[in-house]
């Protein structure tokens, strides 16, 4: 019976007055691929920092492979991509990969790590001469070069172009298929859906959902219907519609739903006056608000 790869037990984190995490308990088993999804400022990065022992919980316990996350034996089994971290610009790609390989007990070969990140052509370049996307791939090389059991990726695809992102997600998918534990944070639902078998939704420092991508999508992947009217619709005209939230301000109506066609058909049928109609994918922030609302509602 092996220990969970990651464990947070009743973890809270406060920065001064700000409650970044509020009594979070979760466990991630070895081999799981988990996405932590949430809007900016939800507490995703804080969660990762606590899992890695880069920050201390205000209360509660964080464990990595059953050990204190600061334990070098635990850290020797992980690879990490962080947001906004820097690397020395005056080292060559192959030099910094070799440097990071020397930190780990059973690293990949230099060429394997560079190949996985698709940086073969840049192996001799100085880090400072890499483009933004290449930087991101270098971080991937540094994260995988120790041949880690678990990978922690904090917003790994930020700043990547479409092609770069596709390729990156494929690489991570392959690592996951080899049985690596992967924990990534993202605010893109598609990204979480594509990679993960489990999605943990965080908002305002709390876990508000923890289930399969299909179950999360059913609750989150809504459409936003916006239109204006000369007279606000009456309660009876909206009754019985499958809406996850609604907002009516003067003559502007905003509805969130998973079945926009059905809702619109019904609205037209009931004779609601509709002008300036827009149907768009709900952004996550809205969807999260709706979900949080769901959770409090009886």
């Amino acid at each position, binding site marked *: 019976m092996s220990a969970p790869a990651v464990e947070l037990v009743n973890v809270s984190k406060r920065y001064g007055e700000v409650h970044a995490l509020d009594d979070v308990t979760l466990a991630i088993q070895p081999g799981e691929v988990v996405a932590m999804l949430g809007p900016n400022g939800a507490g995703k990065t804080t969660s990762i920092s606590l899992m*890695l022992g*880069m*920050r*201390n919980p205000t209360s509660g316990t964080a464990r990595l492979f059953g*050990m204190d996350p600061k334990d*070098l*034996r635990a*850290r*020797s089994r*992980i690879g*990490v991509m*962080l947001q*906004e*971290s*820097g*690397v*020395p*610009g*005056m*080292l060559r790609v192959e*030099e*910094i990969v*070799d*440097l*990071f390989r*020397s*930190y*780990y*007990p*059973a690293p990949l070969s230099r060429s394997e790590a560079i190949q996985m990140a698709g940086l073969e052509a840049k192996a001799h370049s*100085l880090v400072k001469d890499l483009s933004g996307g290449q930087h991101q791939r270098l*971080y991937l090389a*540094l994260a995988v070069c*120790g041949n880690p059991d678990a990978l*922690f990726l904090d917003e790994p695809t930020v700043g990547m172009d479409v092609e770069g992102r596709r390729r990156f997600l494929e690489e991570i998918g392959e690592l996951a298929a080899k049985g690596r534990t992967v924990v990534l944070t993202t605010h893109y639902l598609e990204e979480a859906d594509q990679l993960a078998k489990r999605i943990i939704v965080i908002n305002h420092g709390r876990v508000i959902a923890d289930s399969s991508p299909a179950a999360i999508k059913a609750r989150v992947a809504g459409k936003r219907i916006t239109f204006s009217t000369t007279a606000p619709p009456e309660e009876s005209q909206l009754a019985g519609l499958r809406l996850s939230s609604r907002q009516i301000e003067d003559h502007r109506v905003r509805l969130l739903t998973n079945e926009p066609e059905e809702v619109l058909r019904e609205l037209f049928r009931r004779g609601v006056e509709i002008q300036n109609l827009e149907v768009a994918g709900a952004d996550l922030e809205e969807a999260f608000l709706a979900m949080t609302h769901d959770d409090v509602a009886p």
Partner: protein
Amino acid sequence: MSAVAALNVTASIAPMLARQSYAEFVKLFRVPAFSVTSIVLPSMFYAFIGLGQASEPLYPGSSVTFGAYFLASMALYGVANVMVLGFGISLANERGQKQDLLMKSTPLPAPVFFTAKAASALAIALISIIVLGLFAAVVAGVQLSASQWLTLGWRAMLCSIPFIGLGFALGYLAGPNSAPAVTNLIYLPTAFASGLFFPLRLLPHFLQQIAPYLPLYRAAQLVWDSVGARTEGGSITTDWFYMGAYAVAFFLIALWAYRRDQGRKFN
């Protein structure tokens, strides 16, 4: 039990230290603003100030030449310069670029990181002494006995150690933008006030009063002593005692500054 132990291994320290030291060395060496000033500047000052009067006696009747005396001054200036500026500015820059963030998530032990930084700076300091020594011997014709060359070399290197602590402290206390100004503001005036560029007797009276308490002044007595040119009557035991005390004080400040920085970022 043994299976668990086999799983929980970490990388061995020696190769890690070797790689880290190499990386720290090339990081410093490949920045011309640092490597050129560290390695060439002492020789350049020597050319400007020392070369013209290298073979003249230090003072009328002295058996020591000005060339030998000023070689010792610039050797010390060079090594301390590497420590204060190398650490002060490069550490502050690395913090500014958040390089410490990713390192923190790796299993690299902090003592290995600091040892590697110190080793790389010592290597550059050694190069600066060798370049200066060659310049003084070949171009200025300075003649010292073999034991004088060696004593000067190891004393200058050993005297640089307290300044490693000072460099660390400045690196964690100064911001990345202010670091070059702050380190130079602290280092250059004390180098002057310690008599490294001009003999102390030419400096204002109040500086002559302060000088004996400055770490560079004490270090200067030690390197001047190695070429037979100390400027005051004290003993080298006193000088070494001062150097040790400065080393302890600077490293304690550095440790405090490091902990303060870590507490802000990683608590």
